[in-house]
């Protein structure tokens, strides 16, 4: 009886296994061959000689040739193909796998030639004679392609990445051994998230990967730290991701970053960014250590969205005592833990009235800033600060709360803003002449007799002469007001401040500045796109700023002309050359940039 039940259970499990196999395509292909090649331009992996492929269910496929189009997500084995799966042993001329449709196509050489179709990985059940795609056994022609990676093995995770073993990378005409290399081709952009600060040069060297993770070393360069190595580790699960990085690893001034994203529900998401900055040699005790965390939570409800953003600053994580303070090794800021947070409400775009082409969107919020300001090197040292060498109270901004204050109390703030705009309003019958207008205003109140206003108004006219030639003219006025009421002059005193650069340039235009600035900008541009391979854009801009800008330091040049040419110099290389000339701006040097892109 037990034997019967055992057999019965085994039979049921076998059947269940077959159903599962049929339902799930392979989740990986472990490829080994005499020569494995990756053609990056075509996203094609090939294997030649003694091809051995192990599917995720344990099925072994062998052949003389392997080819997989990573983007099409289909693979082919050709020549002396053997299938070994459980008790199935088949011989054929070709095997084509289509994981997306959960089908495998086989040209059987057992007896007379025949076309078989397998459902999923169920190799026990051949569907003989069933129609197959016309190009199922098409061998991609890569004879004109340059190999990018040559390896001895490849672990292919469909739609995600390939980990090559014994790989050599084609760089500047030579194949450079890399040991292992992970090539990502995922359509999921979350693999591209990283927490690195900017660098002038960055080459990622992904050396380890799986279905949900990629580890990479980065060779980077910037003007301050020169060449250095960094590290990042990605974990991606669909929309969710976590990225940990150390940048740089090889220099003492180091940042440890953590980025996380979680889609809590279809209408909620949460993000975190945490950063630890240290100055330490190797793994020795750091001499500087500070931290920053940013938390963001967004939820959507009806026509509204809400976000909560919280920042937490830890300027000094090392221990400091009053003695350190007395000796000048620490200042007030070292004992603070500033934080701020804002709850924001957004209203989606709404039509102002049914009869006007004007839409509007609104926003409002409420927030706090705690321990944000104190006596210190940035805001000025208080009179009792041992590092105050001037003998005067430098913490002038704190006087607002009383002369003996060393910290500003928690400040609350609220804001309300709205944007009114028109969609493109056609002014002619051909819809080639269009008018746009945008008006944005926001007021932000603080828990003091203080508020700021920001107003931006733009009107633009665009003309499309043909599909290849277009013109745009726009006029923008931006006004900023920083209001302190009766104490306005305390915060914007009528003096000639110095811009803190090595030369100590004075800022005479600031004398008339009372906290209200206006920027007017007239812009005209022409874009000529005769074909998909060439593009020319001319932009002329006239700016009038108050307060008067200082050439080369800040503010906008009164006149600027930008010429930009983009043309395709190869099938996958676009050259973008841009030159901007400034006029009436103290002979400021023109900017020229050259950029290559895909």
């Amino acid at each position, binding site marked *: 009886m037990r034997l019967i039940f055992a057999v019965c259970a085994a039979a049921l499990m076998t059947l269940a296994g077959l159903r599962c196999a*049929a339902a799930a395509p392979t989740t990986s292909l472990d490829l080994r061959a005499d020569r494995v090649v990756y053609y990056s331009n075509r996203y094609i992996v090939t294997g030649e000689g003694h091809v051995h492929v192990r599917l995720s269910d344990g099925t072994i496929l062998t052949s003389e040739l392997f080819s997989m189009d990573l983007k099409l997500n289909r693979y082919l084995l050709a020549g002396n193909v053997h299938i070994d799966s459980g008790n199935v042993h088949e011989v054929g001329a070709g095997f084509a796998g289509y994981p997306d449709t959960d089908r495998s196509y086989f040209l059987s050489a057992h007896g007379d030639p025949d076309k078989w179709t397998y459902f999923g990985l169920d190799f026990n059940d051949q569907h003989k004679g069933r129609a197959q795609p016309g*190009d199922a056994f098409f061998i991609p022609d890569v004879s004109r392609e340059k190999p990018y990676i040559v390896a001895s093995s490849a672990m292919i995770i469909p739609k995600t990445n390939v980990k090559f073993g014994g790989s050599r990378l084609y760089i500047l005409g030579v194949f450079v051994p890399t040991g292992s290399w992970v090539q990502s081709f995922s359509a999921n952009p979350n693999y591209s998230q990283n927490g690195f600060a900017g660098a002038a040069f960055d080459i990622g060297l992904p050396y380890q990967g799986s279905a949900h993770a990629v580890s990479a070393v980065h060779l980077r360069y910037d003007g301050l730290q020169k060449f250095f190595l960094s590290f990042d580790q990605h974990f991606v699960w669909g929309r969710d991701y976590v990225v940990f990085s150390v940048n740089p690893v090889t220099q003492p001034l180091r940042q440890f970053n953590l980025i996380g994203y979680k889609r809590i529900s279809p209408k909620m998401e949460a993000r975190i960014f945490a950063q630890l900055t240290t100055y330490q040699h190797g793994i020795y005790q750091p001499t500087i250590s500070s931290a920053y965390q940013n938390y963001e939570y967004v939820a959507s409800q009806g026509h509204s969205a809400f976000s909560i953003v919280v920042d937490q600053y830890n300027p000094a994580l090392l221990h400091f005592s009053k003695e350190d303070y007395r000796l000048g090794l620490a200042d007030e800021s070292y004992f603070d833990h500033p934080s701020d947070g804002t709850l924001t409400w957004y209203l989606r775009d709404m039509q102002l009235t049914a009869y006007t082409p004007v839409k509007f969107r609104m926003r409002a919020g409420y927030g706090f800033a705690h321990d944000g300001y104190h006596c210190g090197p940035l805001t000025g040292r208080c009179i009792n600060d041992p590092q105050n060498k001037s003998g005067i109270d430098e913490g002038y901004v704190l006087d607002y709360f009383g002369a003996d204050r060393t910290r500003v109390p928690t400040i609350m703030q609220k804001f309300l803003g709205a944007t009114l705009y028109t969609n493109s309003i056609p002014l002619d019958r051909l819809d080639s002449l269009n008018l746009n207008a945008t008006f944005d205003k926001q007021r932000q109140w603080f828990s003091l007799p203080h508020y700021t206003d920001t107003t931006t108004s733009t009107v633009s006219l665009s003309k499309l002469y043909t599909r290849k030639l277009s013109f745009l003219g726009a006029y923008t006025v931006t006004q900023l007001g920083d209001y302190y009421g009766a104490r306005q002059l305390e915060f914007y005193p009528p003096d000639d401040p110095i811009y803190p650069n090595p030369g100590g340039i004075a800022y005479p235009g600031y004398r008339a500045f009372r906290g209200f600035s206006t920027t007017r900008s007239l812009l005209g541009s022409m874009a000529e796109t005769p074909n*998909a391979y060439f593009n020319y854009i001319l932009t002329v801009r006239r700016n009038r700023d108050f307060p008067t800008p200082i050439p080369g330091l800040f503010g906008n040049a009164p006149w600027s002309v930008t010429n930009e040419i983009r043309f395709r110099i190869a099938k996958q290389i676009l050259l973008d050359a841009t030159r901007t000339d400034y006029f009436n701006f103290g002979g400021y040097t023109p900017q020229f940039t050259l950029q290559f892109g895909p």
Partner: protein
Amino acid sequence: MPRLQTYFTAGLTALALLAAATTAPAQQTPQLPHAPGQGEPSTVPATPAPLPEPSLLTAPSPGVPSPGAPSPGASPSGASPPPGSPAPGSSAAPAPAGVNSKPAIVRFTGQLLDVRNGYVYFTTADAFKTSPVLRVVDFDTGGPTSLTPGPELYARATLEAASGSIVELALTRRKLPTDEASLQAYQQAHSYVITGSPKVVAPELLHGQRLTGRPVAVTFYVQVPPTTSLTDTVYITTDASGWVANAMRMDRIDALHYRLTRSFASGTKFAYRYTRGSWTSVEVGEDGLQDDPHQFFVPEVDAKRLTDVVYRWSDQNGTQQQAGPDAIPTPFNPNPFANLPSAIQHPGVPPPSPTPKP
């Protein structure tokens, strides 16, 4: 006990039948008429629609020309006509008059998949019988060759109509071109294809779209948020460009719209998003949440226009000024004047020193 075993056997048989019924094709259609030379039914697409997923830079796999499906054109990315296509010079030697309307010798070309057990298989999935005395020669010289018939090689096959078998294979590594004459020669040879099982329709292939990889002018037309500065540049980032944030730069055509026209091969499928040059300024949905990337599939048309709307940029989720620490020149308004220095010194105030900030 024997009765129990009988029940058990019957139960197992029923389960097996049930399993077979659920895994069998939905339609066990009888064999379709397969007239010699007609090849695949015309309803069977060369490439079913859900299958191709090439990238911007990847040539779509064009359908291999079975006799019923002409050869696709070259794709913009340099994909050449598919293998298995007959070559110029393929010919059909006429049979003696009055003997048979079919030629005695048929020559056609194609790409080999395998030569095995007395059959030669082409990448069209067609198998032909080989003569016991199969000659393997060099394609160019007609003399002996060091090549061994196998995958990837191209061959000119000489088929003897009387025996219905291939008597000679002329091998080359060189890709053989395609023309109308060679297609016709292949059609003639197609009547000698050996198939073991009767043909069964695959319903999942019936509604496919035939894709040739022809260049299609695709215009991206996007409306940006009204808060987008006139001096901002908008880019398209795609999976094919490794999600580089500034992969394809768009042209501004008015205050709210940007445009870009690029040529892609039909059948190309890719995912894309709009950015302002970095991943910190990527588009977010109207609900303020991170959206999935847009998906696009290039159909078999002359031109295609895509219209998208970006409701917000991720770095413009609210324009309120955050009152962070060390904010100057005023304590409660970090940097209200973007065109002014954030560290203006007033007389008597020492210069600020930089501190590491995130």
